[in-house]
């Protein structure tokens, strides 16, 4: 999509295209900017230097598979309930714990199947965003 906007009598040519899933290229008067969207649908600027080759991407998928065995908290809050026990089998979409954060109840679900190897948190414990909650194997 190409468009032109005028701000304070100066006009700019803007071209917007989705170059791959979740990567938007914006060309502003010849200058390129890349944007991606985070889990809360906020756009953020991507540094082109960190944009990786296909081979790197495959590696990333492999490490993402490993990371998928870790269930981390996307937000800070207090654990109100742990719904699984060590040794339990979990399925994708299954609730593993409840976190009270920002006046809301947040069900944290597993994204992959696996066996609960380790539970790193207890009820009533405060956790920070990014903390490891549960490890699957």
């Amino acid at each position, binding site marked *: 999509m190409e468009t032109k906007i005028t701000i304070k009598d100066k006009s700019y040519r803007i071209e917007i295209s989705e170059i791959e899933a979740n990567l938007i290229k914006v060309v502003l008067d010849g200058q390129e900017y890349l944007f991606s969207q985070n*889990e809360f649908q906020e756009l953020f600027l991507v540094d082109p230097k960190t944009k990786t080759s296909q081979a790197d991407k495959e590696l990333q998928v492999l490490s993402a598979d490993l990371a998928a065995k870790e269930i981390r908290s996307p937000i800070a809050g207090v654990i109100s309930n742990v719904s699984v026990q060590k040794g339990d089998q979990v399925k994708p979409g299954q609730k593993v714990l409840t976190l009270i954060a920002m006046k*809301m*109840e*947040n069900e944290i*679900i597993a994204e992959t199947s696996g066996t609960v190897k380790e539970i790193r948190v207890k009820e009533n414990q405060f956790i920070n965003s990014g903390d490891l909650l549960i490890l699957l194997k």
Partner: protein
Amino acid sequence: MIEKFEKINSTSQKAKELALSGAEPWTVVTAQEQTAGYGKDESVWFSPKGGLYFSIILPKSQIEDLQTLTILAAFVISKILKDEFNLEPLIKLPNDVLINQKKVAGILTENIIGKELKASIIGIGLNTNAESFPKDLENITTSLKMELGKEVDNEKIMDQIIKGLKDQLKTISQ
């Protein structure tokens, strides 16, 4: 889209299932009676016939906006109770609305989160036409009918709350 049930375990539970199977935002689940209505910390929300119980699938939003919306829901409900029925509601943040120090409405927002936000549901319980409550609740709970001495129109109130929430979300997510 409004899914109506005569009796259900919990409108929020049903709304969560629908949201995860791809139902559209602003789909509403309502029931005349809930057999397992709940509030925060899995507390029981007594849900006999006559009350207004409904849950809404919210559009995917920033988590901060959902928090604000929860608080604004209490405001929306209070405003309707004041404007339509001339009552003097008090908001007990973030989840409850009181009349004469007794609970008349409860709100619970629940998010389902994997690596990203999968679904958000706001559940609202409003004691509208209940005529009495069990002994353990009678000193802490009231209904609009008990306060006003007349029945109210559940459907009309639900429509007003949904409209209020849509308007508020528009304002905060801009």
